[in-house]
C-alpha cells in the first residue's frame, strides 16, 4: 500500500469529528435525497415498512391500536416512537423516524468504537477505522434512511454488548429484555452473556474462583453453586422483569392483537414467499400439503442447538462479541425465513471480529469469502428476478438450488468465524 494513502487514511481516522461528521453527512444526504426522490418520482425511496410504521403511528395518534394496520408486526413502542410523524405540520416531520433510525446507526457506531477502545485496548484511530465499517457503510446508511427499523435494534444490541463489557449488569438486563421485546431473536445473546459473565469477568471478588480453581475434586453441586453468581442472577432477573413488564403493559393496552402480531405470528405464519432461507421451497410444499414428512417443524432444532447452546458454550468465553456474531450468523443462516434485512443483524458485530480475523490477515482469502457471499446472493437474486419479473417458474430447481448454495456459503463462512473466534483468547 502506498505510504501516502495509508497516512491520509489514518489521518482521517485520527479525527473522530471528521468520522462522525462524515457518518452524519452521509445519512443527511441520503435523507434529503430520499425526500427529493419521494417528491419527484413515482418510484419511492422510502421503504414500504416505513409506511407501515407511520400508518400505525397515525392509528395510535387517533387513540386506536397500531395493529389495526395490516402487517404491523412490531412492538407498539415503535409506533409510539414514531408519533411525531403523525403530527400535522411541515412534511419534514414525516422523516422523523428515518432520522431517528439513522441517528441510532451513528450512536451504535460510536458505541462500537468506544467498546473497541475500552474492552480491546485498541487505540482510538484504529477503533474508529473498524467502527467505520458500520458508520460509513453505505448499505447500513441506506437501509436506515429508507426507514427500516433495524438500526434501532442495532443500537440496542450494541448498547447491550457495551453495557456487559463495562459490567453494567442491571443496564444490560434491561437492554436485553427490551431488545427481546422488540424483535425476539436477541434472546440468544442472553445465553452467551450469562456464560461469559463468570467470576473472572463479573468484576466482583475473585477469591472464590481462585479457591475452586485450586481444588480439583469439585463436585457437580459446587460447580452449580459456583455458576450461580449475583451478576448472573441480576442479569437474568432484570431482563425477565423488563421483558415481562413490557409485554404485560402492551397486552393490557392492546390485548390479543399484540400477542398475535408480535409473537404468535412467527409461529403460525403462512406467508412463506421465496426468500434466502434454505427452507423456503420446502415450506411452500408443506403449506400446500404436498409433503409427507414433518422435517420443517424440526427446523428450530439445528438453529437453536447452534445459536443458543453450542456456540455460546464454546466461544463466549473466548470473545463475547465474536460469539454473538457467530450466534447471529447461525441464527440467520438456519432460520426458516431470511431476507436481506437480517444480514444487518450480524453485520454490526463485524468491527469486533474483523481485527483478528483470518479474513484480514489473509486479504486474498477474505476477498474470496466476501465474493462467495456476494455471488451466492446474486445467483439467488437472478432466480428471484426470473420469477417475480419474468414470470418464469424458477422455484425448482432455480431458487431451490440457489438457496441451498447460499446456505452452503454461509455455513462455510460460519465455520471460518468459529475457527477465528476460537483461536482468539
Amino acid at each position, binding site marked *: 500500500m502506498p505510504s501516502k494513502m495509508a497516512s491520509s487514511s489514518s489521518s482521517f481516522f485520527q479525527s473522530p469529528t471528521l468520522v462522525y461528521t462524515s457518518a452524519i453527512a452521509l445519512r443527511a444526504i441520503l435523507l434529503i435525497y430520499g425526500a427529493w426522490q419521494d417528491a419527484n418520482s413515482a418510484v419511492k425511496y422510502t421503504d414500504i415498512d416505513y409506511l407501515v410504521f407511520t400508518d400505525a403511528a397515525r392509528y395510535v395518534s387517533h387513540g386506536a391500536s397500531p395493529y389495526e394496520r395490516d402487517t404491523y408486526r412490531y412492538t407498539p413502542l415503535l409506533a409510539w416512537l414514531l408519533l411525531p410523524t403523525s403530527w400535522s405540520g411541515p412534511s419534514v416531520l414525516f422523516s422523523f423516524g428515518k432520522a431517528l433510525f439513522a441517528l441510532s446507526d451513528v450512536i451504535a457506531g460510536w458505541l462500537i468504537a468506544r467498546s473497541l477502545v475500552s474492552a480491546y485496548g485498541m487505540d482510538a484511530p484504529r477503533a474508529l477505522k473498524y467502527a467505520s465499517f458500520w458508520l460509513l457503510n453505505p448499505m447500513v446508511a441506506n437501509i436506515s434512511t429508507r426507514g427500516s427499523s433495524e438500526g434501532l435494534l442495532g443500537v440496542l444490541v450494541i448498547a447491550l454488548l457495551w453495557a456487559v463489557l463495562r459490567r453494567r449488569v442491571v443496564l444490560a438486563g434491561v437492554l436485553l429484555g427490551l431488545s427481546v421485546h422488540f424483535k425476539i431473536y436477541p434472546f440468544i445473546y442472553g445465553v452467551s452473556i450469562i456464560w461469559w459473565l463468570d467470576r473472572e469477568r463479573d468484576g466482583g471478588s475473585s477469591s472464590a474462583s481462585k479457591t475452586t480453581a485450586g481444588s480439583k475434586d469439585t463436585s457437580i453441586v459446587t460447580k452449580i453453586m459456583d455458576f450461580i453468581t449475583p451478576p448472573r442472577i441480576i442479569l437474568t432477573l432484570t431482563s425477565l422483569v423488563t421483558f415481562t413488564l413490557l409485554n404485560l403493559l402492551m397486552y393490557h393496552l392492546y390485548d390479543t392483537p399484540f400477542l398475535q402480531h408480535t409473537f404468535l405470528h412467527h409461529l403460525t405464519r*403462512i*406467508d412463506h414467499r421465496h426468500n434466502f432461507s434454505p427452507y423456503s421451497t420446502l415450506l411452500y*410444499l408443506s403449506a400446500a400439503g404436498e409433503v409427507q414428512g414433518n422435517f420443517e417443524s424440526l427446523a428450530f432444532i439445528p438453529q437453536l442447538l447452534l445459536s443458543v447452546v453450542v456456540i455460546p458454550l464454546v466461544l463466549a468465553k473466548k470473545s463475547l462479541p465474536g460469539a454473538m456474531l457467530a450466534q447471529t450468523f447461525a441464527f440467520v443462516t438456519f432460520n426458516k425465513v431470511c431476507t436481506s434485512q437480517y444480514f444487518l443483524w450480524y453485520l454490526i458485530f463485524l468491527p469486533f471480529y474483523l481485527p483478528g480475523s483470518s479474513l484480514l490477515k489473509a486479504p486474498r482469502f477474505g476477498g474470496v469469502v466476501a465474493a462467495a457471499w456476494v455471488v451466492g446472493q446474486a445467483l439467488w437474486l437472478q432466480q428471484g428476478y426470473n420469477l417475480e*419479473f419474468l414470470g*418464469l417458474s424458477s422455484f425448482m430447481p432455480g431458487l431451490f438450488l440457489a438457496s441451498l448454495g447460499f446456505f452452503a456459503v454461509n455455513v462455510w463462512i460460519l*465455520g471460518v468465524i468459529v475457527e477465528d473466534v476460537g483461536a482468539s483468547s
Partner: protein
Amino acid sequence: MKTRITYLQPPSSPFTSTQASLTPTSLRISDLDAAKEVRVTVDVAEVVDDEVRGILNGLHEVHIRWAREDPYVVVAPFGSRVSAGVGVGVSPLQRNEEGGGNGDGDGDGEGVCRLLRRMFGMKGVGCRNYTDSFTTPPVLSTRFASTSTYQFHSALPEHNLGEYIVENICRGEGSACAADWGTADSIDVDYDAVSRSLVVSGYWGQPSASEGWTEEIRAPKESRDRVEVGLLGTEKAVEAEEIKVGGLLGVVGVDKELKPTLFSFPSRHHVLPREATFDVFFPRPTGTHPTMTISLSPAALEYPAAPEDTTCALHAYLTLPSYIFGDKYQLSTDDPLFLESHHLLALRAVSGATDLEAPDWFVPHWGSNWLLELATPPEGQVPEEWNVTVPLHLRYLRPSETGYRSAGVPWPVVFWACTAEEGTKMGTNPFDRVNLGWDGMFGPRTMFYQVHPSGEKARHVEELDVPVLRLEEGGFFSSKTVELGTMAAIVLGLLWVLWKLGSVARSSGQKKSDKEKKSQ
C-alpha cells in the same frame, strides 16, 4: 307466473306490421332484428324444487348476475354491465324476520351456495357458505340500502339454468320454457322476502339467427298466468336523464291487437356512443406483480351528455378472484405522483380478500372488489390512447406439473357515474336494473354511462400464467427431492459447524491442560 318479453329494435332496422301477427292463441314474430329481454316472475310457492324453495325462505334477498365471457352488445334501456361470470349479492333474514318465513333458517349459510349449484350447475368448492366465501361490501351509508350484505363472484363460462327453469319453474311449457337461456348474454335472478317472488331475466343483445328473431309466443294455458310482449324502439328523449321508447304492446291471449305506445322515463343506465370503448390487457411478462392496463378510446374520455346539474367521474369496478389482489395501502395513497403515473384519481372503495401475504389456498373469500376513480386527460389534449394502469399482485398458487397455473381475470366494468343533488327517482323505469355490485356505492339519483368493452377480443377474461412450484409424482421434480435435499443440506451444514466448534473446544481443552501441566 308472469312473463314479459321485450324486443328492442335498433333505430336503423325497419319494422313492418307483417313481422308480428297476433292471434287469440299466440303471437308470431318473424325475422325481427332486435335485442331481447325475457323476464319471468313466479311466486316462490310455484317453484317445484323443494330445496331451492327452502333456501329462498331463509333469505331476505338474493341477487344473482351472470354474464357471458365473450363480447355482447348492450342497448338502451338495457345499458348496464357486470364482469363476466356469476356475481351474487345476498342478505340473510334477520332473526326477528325469520318467524315470518317457514325457511330452514340456513344456519350455516351454505344454502346460497347450494342454490348456485342447483340453479346454475356451478361446480367446484369455491362457494362454501356466505360467512366464509362471501365478502362484505363497505356500507357507505345506510341511506343507500341497495347493497346486499354479502357478495360473491366466480368464473362461470357455462351454466345449465335453462334446464333448471324448464324443470322447476315453467314445467316444460310456455314462453319462459321456449326461451333459449343457454344463449343469453346475461341473466339476472332476483328474490326478496317482501314480494316473495322469484324474478329471472335473460338478455340477448342480438338475435341468435342472422335474419332475426323468428318465434311463436303462445298464450298461457292457465288463466292466472300472463304473457306480455313489447316491440319497442328508442327515440331521442327530451330530458337528458330520460329514455323514450315507442312501439307496440300486447298481452298474448287477451288483447285482440297490439297497441301502439310511446312513453319516457328517467333511466339509471345509459349507453355511450359505440366508439366509446375500453380494452384490457396485462403487459407481458406479467411476473408475479401483473399490471392491469385499461386502454380507453378518445370517445370514452368525452364527458357524457348528462343533465347539466350533474357532476360526472370515470370509474372502473374491478372484480378480482382471490389469486390476484391489489395492495390497498398502495392504491389508497394520495401521492399525486403515483396516481398520475397510473392515471388514477383515487381508490373509492374496496372489499374482500385484501390480505397481502396469504397463499391462495388459505384465502377463504372468493376475491375482492375495487372501485377506482380514473383520471381523464385535460380537455382538448385527448391522446389516441389513454392507458390506466392498476398495479396488482399474485398469490402463491398450489404446485403443478408444468410449473404454471392459469388464472383468469375478468375485465372490469368501466363507466361514468354522474351524480345529481336532486332529480327524479329511477324506480319508475320498467327496465331498471340494480344490485350490480357497483351501483350500490353511489347515491340513488346517480346516472351511469357505460363504456363498451372492446369487441375485438374473443373473451372478456384475461388469462395469466402464474409461475408455481413444478411438482411431479416421481423423478427430480418430486417433493422427495425437496425434502431430502433440504434435509441433507441442513444436516451437513449443522455437522460442519459442529465439527468446527468441536475442534475449537478440543484445542482449547488441550491448551488448558497444557497450562495446568506447566503450572504444576
